[in-house]
C-alpha cells in the first residue's frame, strides 16, 4: 500500500495534468474561433470557383481537346492520395479518422491492382501511414506556420501539378476533415484531378452560353491550376478548424477525467489517513490499558 506522502504526490501530479489540459482546451477554443472564421470566409471563393469551372467545363464541346487537368489522362492506374492532417497530436481522433479513411481507400485500390502514391501534408498523418505504407509515401510536407496563407496552398498545389505533368499519377484525391461543428468533423475524400462536378452537369443542363474573353482554352488553362490551389487551400482551412475543434473537445474530456481522478484519489487518501489515525489511537489506548 502506498504511503500517505506518495498519495499526496500523486494527487498533485494529477492536478498539474488537469491544469495543462484545461489550458490546452482554452487555447484551442480561441484558436478555433479564428480558424472557423477563416474557413467560413474562404468558402464563397471555393464555391463560386467550382461553379464557374463546372459551367465552363460543361460547355467545352470536345473533351479530348481540353487541358489534361480537366480531361484526365484517360487511365486510372496510378492514384495519388493527398492526405492532409495536423502537425500536432492530442486532438482526439482527428488525425486517426482521416488516416483511417485514407487507409480504407489504399486497401481498396491496392486490392484492385492499382498503384498508390501518397503525399502527406502534415506530420501526424505521415507518422501513422509510414508504418504500413512507408514505401508509397512520395513526400511529406510540413506546415509549421502560424496563419495559413493562400501561398502555402499554392506551393503544395504546384508540387502536385509538377508530378502530374511528369505523368507520375492519373488521379489525385484529397483527404481532409470537413468542419461541421465543434463536436462534428467529417473525414472527406475529394477527387481534384480530374475534377468531378457533383450534379452540376445535370442541374444546369441547359447551360447558359457564355462569351469568353480571351477564349475558353486560355481561361481553362489558367483556371484549372488555380482551382487545385483553391480546393487545397479550402481543405487546409477546414482541417485547421476541425483540428482545433477536435482538440477542444478532447481536452475538455481530459479535464473532466482528471477531475474525476482527483476526486477518487482524494477519497482514498482521506480514508487511509483516517485509518492510520484510528490505528494509532487504538495502539495508545491498548497500551494505557495494559499498564
Amino acid at each position, binding site marked *: 500500500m502506498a504511503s500517505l506522502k506518495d498519495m499526496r504526490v500523486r494527487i498533485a501530479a494529477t492536478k498539474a495534468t488537469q491544469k495543462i489540459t484545461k489550458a490546452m482546451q482554452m487555447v484551442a477554443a480561441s484558436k478555433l474561433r479564428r480558424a472557423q472564421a*477563416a474557413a467560413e*470566409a*474562404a468558402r*464563397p*471563393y471555393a464555391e*463560386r*470557383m467550382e461553379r*464557374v469551372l463546372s*459551367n*465552363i467545363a460543361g460547355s467545352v464541346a470536345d473533351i479530348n481537346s481540353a487541358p489534361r487537368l480537366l480531361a484526365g489522362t484517360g487511365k486510372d492506374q496510378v492514384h495519388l492520395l493527398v492526405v492532409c492532417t495536423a502537425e500536432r497530436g492530442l486532438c482526439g481522433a482527428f488525425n486517426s479518422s482521416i488516416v483511417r479513411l485514407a487507409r480504407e481507400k489504399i486497401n481498396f485500390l491496392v486490392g484492385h491492382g492499382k498503384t498508390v502514391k501518397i503525399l502527406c501534408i502534415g506530420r501526424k498523418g505521415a507518422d501513422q501511414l509510414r508504418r504500413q505504407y512507408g514505401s508509397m509515401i512520395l513526400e511529406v510536407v510540413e506546415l509549421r506556420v502560424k496563419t495559413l*496563407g*493562400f501561398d502555402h496552398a499554392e506551393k503544395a498545389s504546384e508540387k502536385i501539378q509538377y508530378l502530374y505533368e511528369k505523368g507520375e499519377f492519373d488521379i489525385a484525391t484529397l483527404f481532409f476533415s470537413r468542419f461541421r461543428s465543434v463536436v462534428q468533423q467529417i473525414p472527406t475524400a475529394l477527387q481534384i484531378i480530374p475534377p468531378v462536378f457533383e450534379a452540376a452537369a445535370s442541374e444546369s443542363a441547359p447551360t*447558359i*452560353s*457564355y*462569351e*469568353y*474573353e*480571351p477564349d475558353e482554352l*486560355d*481561361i481553362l488553362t*489558367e*483556371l484549372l491550376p*488555380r482551382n487545385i490551389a*483553391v480546393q487545397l*487551400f479550402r481543405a487546409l482551412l477546414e482541417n485547421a478548424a476541425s483540428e482545433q475543434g477536435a482538440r477542444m473537445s478532447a481536452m475538455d474530456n481530459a479535464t473532466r477525467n482528471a477531475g474525476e481522478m482527483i476526486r477518487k484519489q482524494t477519497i482514498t487518501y482521506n480514508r487511509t489517513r483516517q485509518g492510520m489515525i484510528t490505528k494509532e489511537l487504538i495502539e495508545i489506548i491498548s497500551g494505557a490499558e495494559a499498564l
Partner: protein
Amino acid sequence: MAKFQFDLVGPEKLLYSGMVDQVDVPGSEGDFGVLAGHAPLVAMLRPGIVTITENGAQVRAMVGGGFAEVGPNGLTLLADFAMPTDQVDGAVLAGQIKDLEEDVADAAEGAARDRAAHRLDQLRAVQAVLGR
C-alpha cells in the same frame, strides 16, 4: 437605374457583396463596364483597379488578376488578391514593382521575361492611378 448583384471575392474572404449600378472591370483584353442585364461572360482579369458605382458613389478596389463571371445572377469577381484602394500600401506596391524590375533585368530573353515585363507594366499602371 437597374441594379444587379455584385460579389468581389478574394481567396481568403468575401470583400464586397451587394446591389450595384455599374462595375468597371480591368479585363485582360481591356477594361469593360458591366451594367444590369449584361450578356453572360467569363473574362480574365489583369492587375488593376475595379470601380464600383453604387447610388452615384464610387468605391475602388485593387485586384491582382483573377476571373470575372457575368451570369444570370449578376457579376462575380474571383480575384487572386483584392483590397480596397485606400488600404493599399504604397510602399508594398513599390516593393513589388522593384522586385519585378529586378526580375526583368535578371531574366534571360524569353517567355518568363516577357511575363514579368508585362506584369510590371500593369503594376505601374495601378501605381499611376493611385498616385502614390
